[in-house]
């Protein structure tokens, strides 16, 4: 539903330019306010200092091992959480008894604020990668789990009956009908689950670690170096945008069969 209003007709180039301008204006305002002392630099940082910190991080290469660790934790948390969610989701969705049995516990665990588990994971798994992955897994698992559960329950009964008439055994139904349907739901929640894996990694690092971008932020905060804290936040933001972009690319590849609202083909 496109309205013929002025801002809907803005061209892509113009839009990108305006977005860049907005960023520039915000940065400029921040610069002016902190330089003139309206906002205290101690609390709000200095934009040029922040940029300098980021520059030093990347030019000296100091940031790379930390980024690598955070990325590793994100990917592991996503992979393990997704596989667990897919497996357990399929199992519970296809076995009504197990599903009824587990229902209150699943609900309780989902309702619990899982970030609070970080200290326990730190005690169990130490301050290394494993405890961050564990935290990320608890976040990713439920997203994937609920999507798989939904995916299995929303399989069209007609498609199912058709596959049975075509001779599909129980096992083949699982492989050719339930699994593709469930994975399509998992893919459609890819943005959220990758984002959650990232949150798990960074929050885990922030609460106690020896490496990672979250650790850098924690260190800087300890000495009231607000510039470095803000620099860390910027790096994480750009990194998250990059992850999101990659996910979008993967998604369009894997979900070609999904109908889009209006689709015409290029000539």
């Amino acid at each position, binding site marked *: 539903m496109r309205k013929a209003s002025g801002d809907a007709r803005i061209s892509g180039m113009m839009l990108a330019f305006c977005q860049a301008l907005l960023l520039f204006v915000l940065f400029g305002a921040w610069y002016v306010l902190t330089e003139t002392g309206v906002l205290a630099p101690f609390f709000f940082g200095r934009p040029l200092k922040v940029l300098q910190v980021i520059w030093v991080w990347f030019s000296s290469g100091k940031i790379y091992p930390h980024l690598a660790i955070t990325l590793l934790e994100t990917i592991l948390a996503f992979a393990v959480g997704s596989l667990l969610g897919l497996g357990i989701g399929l199992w519970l969705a296809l076995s009504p008894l197990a599903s009824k049995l587990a229902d209150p516990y699943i609900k309780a665990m989902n309702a619990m604020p899982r970030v609070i588990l970080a200290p326990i994971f730190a005690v169990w798994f130490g301050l290394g990668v494993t405890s961050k992955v564990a935290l990320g897994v608890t976040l990713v698992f439920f997203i994937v789990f609920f999507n798989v559960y939904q995916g299995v329950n929303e399989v069209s009964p007609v498609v199912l009956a058709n596959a049975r008439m075509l*001779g599909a055994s129980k096992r083949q139904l699982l492989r*050719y009908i339930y699994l593709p349907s469930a994975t399509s739901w998992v893919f459609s929640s890819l943005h959220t689950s990758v984002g959650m894996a990232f949150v798990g990694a960074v929050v885990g690092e922030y609460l106690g670690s020896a490496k990672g971008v979250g650790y850098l932020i924690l260190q800087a905060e300890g000495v009231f170096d607000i510039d470095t804290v803000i620099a860390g936040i910027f790096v994480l933001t750009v990194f998250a945008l990059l992850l999101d972009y990659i996910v979008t690319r993967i998604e369009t590849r894997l979900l070609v069969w999904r109908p889009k609202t209006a689709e015409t083909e290029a000539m």
Partner: protein
Amino acid sequence: MTSAAPAAAAMGLENVTCAFAARGGGDQGRYIAVRDTSLTISAGEFVSVVGPTGCGKSTLLNVAAGLLAPSSGRALVHGVPLSGINTRAGYMFQSDALMPWRNTLDNVTAGLEFHGTAKADAVPNAREWLKRVGLAGFEDRYPHQLSGGMRKRVALAQMLILDPEILLMDEPFSALDIQTRQLMENELLELWSADRKSVLFITHDLEEAISLSDRVIVLSAGPETHPIGEFAIDLARPRDVAEIRMQRRFTEIHEAIWQVLKSEVLKGYAQSKR
């Protein structure tokens, strides 16, 4: 009319009754959709079942397919009582039954894959069938990229590639516009006349039933649906469904069946209004 001896029947229903738990549950007890229905289809015969909407036609077909176990009575395939899925039958559904995540070609090969044929061996066969239903060149399309008529053709190829002896069709063309529908009906007749499978065709469209079939069975309005009339269609084959409707004999048969069907349709309509 139906002179076929039971032994020659490809498919039969014997005193089938289907009762469902009543929607409200409780006192009303059970809703009897189909009561005490028997019918047979001889080998190579095209039989249509017509009846008012909501009279339990699909229920009968699901019993014949083995998707639904009847409350009493039984389904027979070549004289053998059916248990589980009817593996000698192909089923064409009223609504879309293609796997949306598989493209046209993969949807057609699905049945062969389920039966253990290697994908690579199934592909040439599937291409051949897609050509036969007029969809050569559409192998890579996904169901949502096809029109309603094209999806029906894919479903037809998907069913026929397994070479079933019995075709069960549940108002397969009811969602199509009238032109596409007549084209599809002609194509179905052409494919059918090539190797004369036994067909049980469900429809609420009397004209469709007459123009396609050897025999038309009329069902009463639900609940407790049962057959109330049976008519042999003695129109010559091959037929063109668009032209056959102009023939005088067609009109006569239509008139005769409509006499029986009319009161049931009105009954069904009155019930649906309640």
